[in-house]
């Protein structure tokens, strides 16, 4: 129960931050961070696949509605969810942990979380920006935007993780 409320609050906070703050943030030309996918990254491991895909689709659609790009973020989020399933099934053995593990920086350690976040953020941004441009011939030009946006998002993901994980430990 506690877990569900925590995720609902995270959903709302991330969507609000994305819509009202990050949408207007631009670094070096056209690079915008998309921090909201932190929600997909942090869903607990025991989330069943159908729920994972449904939630990813919903948060993508939610962002789309505020950006007038119906389906764009939803597409990217669903693809991200699929790669999340792949990565967790390859890298996480649940028997090795005593309590239920969660994909957070605090529990999984820096190296694992860095790899996990980097790959998923890159995949999300790659599909998102290329679907937006929608032209094969512009993929090379888009790649630089993908890299810079990914770095920007990754930085914010780590800032968010470090800030909130410290708080939880103290309680």
């Amino acid at each position, binding site marked *: 129960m506690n877990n569900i409320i925590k995720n609902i609050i995270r959903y709302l906070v991330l969507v609000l931050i994305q819509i009202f703050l990050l949408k207007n943030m*631009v670094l070096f*030309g*056209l690079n*915008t961070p998309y921090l909201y996918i932190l929600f997909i990254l942090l869903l607990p491991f025991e989330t069943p*696949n*159908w729920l*994972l*895909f*449904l939630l*990813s*689709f919903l948060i*993508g*659609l939610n962002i789309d509605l505020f950006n*007038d*790009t*119906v*389906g*764009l973020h*939803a*597409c990217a989020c*669903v*693809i991200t*969810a*699929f790669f999340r*399933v*792949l990565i967790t099934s390859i890298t996480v053995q649940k028997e090795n942990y005593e309590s239920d593990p969660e994909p957070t920086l605090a529990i999984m350690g820096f190296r694992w979380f860095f790899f996990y976040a980097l790959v998923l953020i890159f995949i999300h941004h790659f599909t998102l920006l290329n*679907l*937006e*441009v*929608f*032209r094969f011939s*512009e993929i090379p*030009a888009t790649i630089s935007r993908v890299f810079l946006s990914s770095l920007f998002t990754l930085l914010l993901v780590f800032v968010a993780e470090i800030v909130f994980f410290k708080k939880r430990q103290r309680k």
Partner: protein
Amino acid sequence: MLNLWRFISRYNAFFFLIIYLTIALVLLIRNNDFQRASTFNTSNQIVGSVYQEVNSINKYLNLALVNDSLANENRRLHAMLKTSFMDDSLVTNTVTDTIHKVKYEYILAEVVNKSINSRNNYITINRGSKQGIKKGMGVIGPSGVVGIVWNVSENFASIQSVLHEDTRITSSIEGTPYFGPLVWNGKDPRIVTLTDIPNQLNLKPKTRVVTSGLGVIFPKGILIGTVLKSGVKGGGSFLDIAVKLSTDFYALQYVYVIKNNFQTEQETLEEANKESLNE
């Protein structure tokens, strides 16, 4: 049946991916004009290029026939030349009527929504077909060119801004006769590129770039921006000029839509040219 079910539940992530991705893609392509247009355009391009290939073969087979008809036409035209007639005409004078007619009218509109950070940017204004706005009209702001009207509803219109990959505004360097299309490369919303200007021109930074007045959309001499730097693209004979836009899209509040009273006349004329070329 059991095996099938086992297979599906084992690889359920993949099936979920397909289901949700299909929904999302259908939404994306149905609801976003840009993606829809380019999907259909791609298919049209393929069909079109096939037709073009077939046509080039047909053209070759018909060469003899075409040659005959061209020779015939040459004979007819030679007979019509001035040198074929005896010249006994008088010199006539014509008087030009100097009463001014209004060519361009401006409709004021307020910006109600805009995007700047996407690859293809649009601006929505609060004037539409009721106020006389039509697709294809030019739009300028207080400090320079903004874009071209794209879609019109009763009370609103959306503008394809200069910051769009399909926008081509014919512009020229102030004080020179040279002109070329202005394109945006999608990197910096303050800088656009002016191409097709011959490279014998020695441009200084801060030279003004203005609309050329060719075509029917913009009057001549409306400011677009100033030259930032110019350089020759590898081995070409044309300059690639980086132009700093004079319009600050972040601060854009009011725009003017330009109505050209002679647009239909000019377009009908040019359309007739194209048709007679095709025949």
